[in-house]
């Protein structure tokens, strides 16, 4: 695992609240959706941080904050030491170059009327210093080659490619500006099972080749384990547990992580009758009105009085080797994703 030198990405107390308004003519703010509510972590060169958690827990909002596609309510994001919020003009442009994104849906995230060459080369329009006009075609063909697409297909349109190939186009575009960090929001969720593995292998190869750092958001916990050095588990806008892949998967200490891992179906029918399953009751509470104290307490089987009164901090507790946001954090070996 890489933890050499300065982190390429430093996130501190990041908060994003979306205003909840009422009234049609005169809008009044009546509350806020706390989509991301105090998230901190570091990411180093060549490292992959996996992010998992239920739908709506704030993963994509976090990704957009990192990309400066949303303005944070408070908190900071530093890319290679530079604060994203204070940067302006040329500085902001340089920071943006350093962090790129690969989107979830290869079917809708590519403009159907642009050729593959235009799509992959589009970042050069804004950052013309990376590839002067005369060089672009060659640069784009190199990128296509890197991601395993035929460079001769530069003039084709997205609909002429399969899902897996389209995802490669998205990755080639993400690589165009030679960033240090790539944020992948569900990069393989829409792909065929047989194609997923091809894309994962490609991401890993590119990481080794260019020392890329990844933020890897995905639903599939076994894919996250495969690709990640560290994993952060989110619940209702907060990281509830973070650690190395083995710490999270083999020695989870937060009840939510334990429930999440136990819910992952194991692809082996042997012994299925005897598996422990923690089935969470109910739906996650609304992020507009999260429970007091510990946000997980409404679904937690270990909740005590203190859980409603005091918010558990994300910290290492006695008997554990990594941070967890639970007053009663303790290792519980659940059947985990293989």
């Amino acid at each position, binding site marked *: 695992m890489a933890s050499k030198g300065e982190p390429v990405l430093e996130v501190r107390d990041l908060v994003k609240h979306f205003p909840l308004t009422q009234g049609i003519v005169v809008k009044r703010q009546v509350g806020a959706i706390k989509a991301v509510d105090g998230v901190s972590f570091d990411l180093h060169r060549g490292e992959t941080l996996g992010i998992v958690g239920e739908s709506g827990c704030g993963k994509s909002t976090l990704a957009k904050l990192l990309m400066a596609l949303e303005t944070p309510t408070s908190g900071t994001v530093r890319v290679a030491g530079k604060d994203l919020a204070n940067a302006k003009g040329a500085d902001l442009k340089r920071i943006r170059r350093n962090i790129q994104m690969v989107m979830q849906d290869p079917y809708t995230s590519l403009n159907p009327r642009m050729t593959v060459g235009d799509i992959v080369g589009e970042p050069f329009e804004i950052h013309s210093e990376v590839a002067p006009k005369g060089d672009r075609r060659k640069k784009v063909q190199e990128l296509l080659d890197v991601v395993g697409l035929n460079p001769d297909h530069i003039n084709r349109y997205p609909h002429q490619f399969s899902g*897996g190939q389209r995802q490669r186009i998205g990755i080639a575009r993400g690589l165009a500006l030679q960033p240090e960090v790539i944020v992948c929001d569900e990069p393989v969720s829409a792909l065929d099972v*047989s194609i997923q*593995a091809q894309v994962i292998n490609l991401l890993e190869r590119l990481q080794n080749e260019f020392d890329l750092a990844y933020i890897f958001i995905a639903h599939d916990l076994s894919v996250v384990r495969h690709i990640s050095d560290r994993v952060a588990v989110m619940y209702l806008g907060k990281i509830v547990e973070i650690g190395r892949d083995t710490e999270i998967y083999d020695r989870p200490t937060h009840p939510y992580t334990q429930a999440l891992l136990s819910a992952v*179906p194991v692809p082996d*029918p042997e012994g299925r009758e005897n598996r422990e399953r923690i089935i969470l009751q109910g739906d996650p509470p609304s992020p507009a009105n999260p429970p007091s104290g510990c946000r997980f307490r409404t679904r937690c089987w270990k909740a005590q009085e203190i859980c409603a009164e005091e918010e558990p901090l994300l910290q290492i507790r006695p008997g554990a080797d990594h941070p967890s946001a639970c007053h009663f954090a303790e290792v519980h070996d659940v059947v985990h994703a*293989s």
Partner: protein
Amino acid sequence: MQNPSVDTHLLPADTLGTAPLLAVDNLHVEFATRQGVARAVNGVSYALNAGETLAVLGESGSGKSVTAQAIMGILDMPPARIPKGEIRFRGTDLLKLSENARTQIRGQQIAMVFQDALSALNPVFTVGWQIAEMFRVHRGMGKKAAYAKAIELMDRVRIPAARQRVHDYPHQFSGGMRQRIMIAMSIALDPDVLIADEPTTALDVTVQAQIMELLAELQRESNMAMILITHDLGVVADVADKIAVMYGGRIVENAPVHDVYKTPAHPYTKGLLESIPRVDQKGQDLYAIKGLPPNLLDMPTGCAFNPRCPYRQDNCVTDVPPLHEISGTRSSACHYWREVLDGVEG
């Protein structure tokens, strides 16, 4: 209680003794498209007994949903056409029945849960109204009785505070709850067979676990048979009794669940199982099936999997492999199933 205005069991109970409850036999479905005829289903056969769960696995576009739609009788014809095959329910070929007779079976004896619950529910009616409608139309119930049944069903699929929420609209429920409402509608009339087409694909793992548990419980209560369409090998391992694997519009492997995971008999199945990330593979490349899924308008000659197959021999390009019977319960559509089964590396 109420005297049903329609006869729900117009088909004779199984008179053949050992015949399966539902049997799809050599089914073919094709679509007329502007580019030509798309042969989406090319000879699918599978069978199902009461209380059993059959998982249908396979690549996207391999014909899983089209087969299910043919069973339900909800394909638009044209552009769809069924040139060949039978779908026998309690011994009767559904494809030979009148539309009227099929309507009687649909929803009452064979029901379906669709992948996308939000678009399958009508946004302008309350969920209670939509569930109650099933009882009014099919059971001739009055409004009050039908609503009471709706609340009972919402309770059964564990919608909290069902009595209060019966007048809510679909958009007021979360994705997981909407899927539970869909399930409530599909089991409303106590079907013998439930077809669940990717019932949890759009949901995350915690909600998925709730839904799968719910389906298993409903099945135990009523001995309902289930066809579960999915591409999640984990879900299949959890709930299936037997598996049908599809590729390019055909069944390439049929087997009891334990056999498939231990000793797959078709190279595609084997490749799928091997591409699941495993803990001991961390830091290594994942096994990946090379190449791309087939184009229905331009299928490879011989075995549809041959351009991607590590076991391919010359005859694979010329001869379509028949579905070889391996044992009473297993079959594989591969010329070289023996080698695959014996674990010979491709």
